[in-house]
């Protein structure tokens, strides 16, 4: 750990960064997001398997605007989020100092291309328990699935914690806040809840980097990740595009091709 702290401290002292986003130990032993502005705060900096929060979500917060040089300690989900954000024009190459820790060593990424290579080499296998759960839901009849999701989603209190935790939910004005027209019913009841979660999942289809933050953030323990995961699997198997692995846009749901075999738009 001293290596990480030493390095970060050097970045401060040499003026490369004026803010470092990392983790410190929380009350329950969890990695808690921490914002370091001075090297002497760094003694609290940690990085271990409990540091699961996706820190990329903070990068677009207005509070960070006063810092010009930001460093970030990225876990794997954060790295993928950074790539996806770059593909969507939200961050630029070289804008941040990006570090990670792998096999006890501190890695500094020279550019997004380096992250792309790192991600490509370390893509995890999908969690088998998750897959089994998905399979189980898929094997249900239409009616059973409808019942399953209306039951799960009926508990939603529309706190929008899922949206706040998601590094890719960065719209300045979310469509649920639009009332002319009113796309999604506001009261946290049946249809409105269903609308919100379907819209959310569709907006993340082909973009979700599967960090699991939405589900972790949900106070009602709704298995939200299943929706986006299922959509992603469909996209990967049909188009072969894995979100959060490319720094250039490669979005399955929005590519017009002159030689498209469907000619509805020509």
């Amino acid at each position, binding site marked *: 750990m001293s290596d990480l702290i030493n390095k970060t401290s050097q970045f401060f002292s040499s003026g490369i960064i004026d803010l470092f986003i990392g983790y410190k130990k929380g009350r329950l032993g969890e990695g808690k997001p921490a914002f370091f502005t001075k090297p002497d705060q760094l003694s609290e900096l940690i990085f271990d398997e409990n540091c699961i929060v996706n820190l990329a979500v903070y990068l677009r917060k207005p509070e960070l605007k006063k810092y010009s040089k930001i460093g970030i300690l990225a876990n794997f989900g954060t790295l993928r989020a950074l790539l996806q954000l770059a593909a969507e024009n939200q961050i630029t190459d070289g804008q941040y100092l990006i570090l990670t820790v792998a096999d006890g060593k501190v890695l500094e990424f020279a550019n997004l291309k380096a992250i792309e290579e790192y991600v490509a080499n370390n893509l995890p296998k999908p969690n088998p328990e998750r897959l089994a759960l998905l399979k189980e839901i898929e094997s249900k009849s239409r009616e059973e699935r409808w019942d399953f999701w209306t039951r799960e989603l009926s508990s939603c209190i529309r706190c929008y914690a899922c949206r706040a935790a998601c590094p890719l939910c960065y719209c300045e004005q979310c469509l649920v806040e639009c009332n002319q*027209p009113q796309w999604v019913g506001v009261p946290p009841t049946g249809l409105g809840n269903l609308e919100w979660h379907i819209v959310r999942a569709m907006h993340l289809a082909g973009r979700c980097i599967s960090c699991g933050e939405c589900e972790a953030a949900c106070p009602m323990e709704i298995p939200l990740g299943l929706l986006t995961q299922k959509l992603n699997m469909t996209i990967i198997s049909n188009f072969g595009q894995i979100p959060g692995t490319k720094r250039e846009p490669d*979005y399955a749901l*929005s590519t017009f091709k002159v030689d498209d075999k469907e000619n509805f*738009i*020509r």
Partner: protein
Amino acid sequence: MARIGVFVCHCGENISSTVDCAKVAEIASNYPGVVYSIDYKYMCSDPGQNLIKEAIQKHKLTGVVVAACSPRMHEPTFRKATAEAGLNPFLCEMANLREHCSWVHFREDSTTEKAAELVRVLVEKVKHNEELFPIKVPITKTALVIGGGIGGIQAALDIANSGHKVIMVEKNPSIGGKMAQLSETFPTLDCSQCILTPRMVEVAQHPNITLYTYAEIESVDGFIGNFKVTIRQKAKSVDHKACTGCGLCIEKCPIKKIPDEFNAGLGNRAAIYVPFPQAVPNKPVIDRNNCTYFLKGKCGLCKKVCPADAIHYEQEDELIKVDVGAIVAATGFDIKHSDFFPEYGYGKYADVIDGLQFERLASASGPTLGVLKRPSDGKEPESIVFIACAGSRDPAKGIPYCSKICCMYTAKHAMLFKHKNHHGKATVFYMDIRAGGKMYDEFVRRAIEEDDVNYIRGRVSRIYEKNGKLIVCGVDTLLNSRPVEIEADMVVLATAAIANSDSEELAQKLHISYDPYHFFSEAHPKLRPVETNTAGIMLAGACQAPKDIPDTVSQASGTAAKVVALFSQDELTREPLIAYVNNNTCVGCFLCQSVCPYLAIEKEEIRRRDGTLVKTVAKINPGLCQGCGTCVALCRSKSIDIHGYTNRQIYAEVSALFNRREYAGV
């Protein structure tokens, strides 16, 4: 408060036979916001339009719903009437009672009910309509003509003579195209070069025409009135400003055995060459694929002998960017080549040739100086068999269409042969003679009656060679399908006219559509035959479909008229039904960019007054956007909308359908 007028049309009996129009008008009068409602037999007629105009003024209407036919049919009519009454035309909407209701249902109460619902939906929409104003786009008054054959030449001269600038791009070293290769032309038998070459010179000397030969189109961006075109000027390796065209380099070039494209492979040329003596420009280029200097790094003979020091081996391809307002595609056609007819031995027997090769053999400027000599041994043929429809009208070979020009040129070929050899035997195998055109059928009759060309109705099955003769096996279907075997010295196949091999690529660069055979598609086969579906891009000649010279020239002049009409205005007016971006909510993810089929989405930087960047957002180019709405559907934050079909308007329509109330006891 909205003040909507509803005008229900009977369309004669088209609507009123199944819909109770008076009832629809009565129901509509109860809709919230509707202050006036009436039905009439022909709303599109003058008195019908006056009903609308008077109501707008008398009832101070803020919106108009005309319940009649398809908006494709009469939306412009009713919007014009609305505008004449002083209301913004885009506050007028149409409910399609004819195609969507009366034509597809029987006369029942529910049919009238559906008609009333269609009106109600539009009433709800029009309440959210906004005043819109046509978009003005400036026009660059320069035309680009792609292709320097007779079609391109005619279009270029007509446009240039109207006082506009023209840029002509030709991929070969000389303009002239296929017509320059022809010997004589039907139906007058006048010499092709004699009528073409003066026009080629006129193009080269015209002050309004800039000519790029040995050049290709690299890319095309922009839109009508405002195209940005990049031209690739291929390296000629010869400085045409310095070159005097003396020809010494060609004479001294040691590589002389390259099959000559201009002579359809029947002659040879050098590695540095001018395609033909009357070429424009009449200055050579180096064919780098065959030049020893470029292949092996040595030789340099042409450079040594050039008195003007015009040879520049180091020359590179040059990319030239030009702005043009209109584009004329006049890239011509090709003919089907070898190995297409194994049963005819095409490609195997030297004396089985195609029509273009015959033209070169018959041409005074050709490899035999106009004496018909067969390619295998130079013997003058005594018997020639001409085969029409060689590949055309042949679905088995992938070409179901008629190549149109072959009947005429085959008659001409047979005639030219008979004129050169009175005792020779000319036989034509044909399926039908298609000689529609001024003096065309007379021309074919002349070949048969005066020049004694033997026309046999039937398709040849195979050709084989025996003792130096070609044996042509066919039948005479007019004589009980009697087998016919003809010994010929030479066989001329009227091979199918096909699209150029690179036409698909060019069509994609131009964003124009093409048919299954890669000919470019016109916007409408009857009423818009010279335009493409992409505004500002027009067609001339055989790039659209096989055409003869008169048709090509006529179309080229028609195209020129379209271009000149476009250039007669300073600005272009377009309907404002295009997408627009809400800068406040756009987060600049640009996923909309890749979905736009018209490449209309650009980036716009929003800056503070001091110049610091606030954010980058999407911007719709109003010239390119076609209002398809794909970006609107894709945008997550609903930051893109489309004028005339805003989310609010559509939502109002859909909500109206779901929130049905009883307005009258239907």
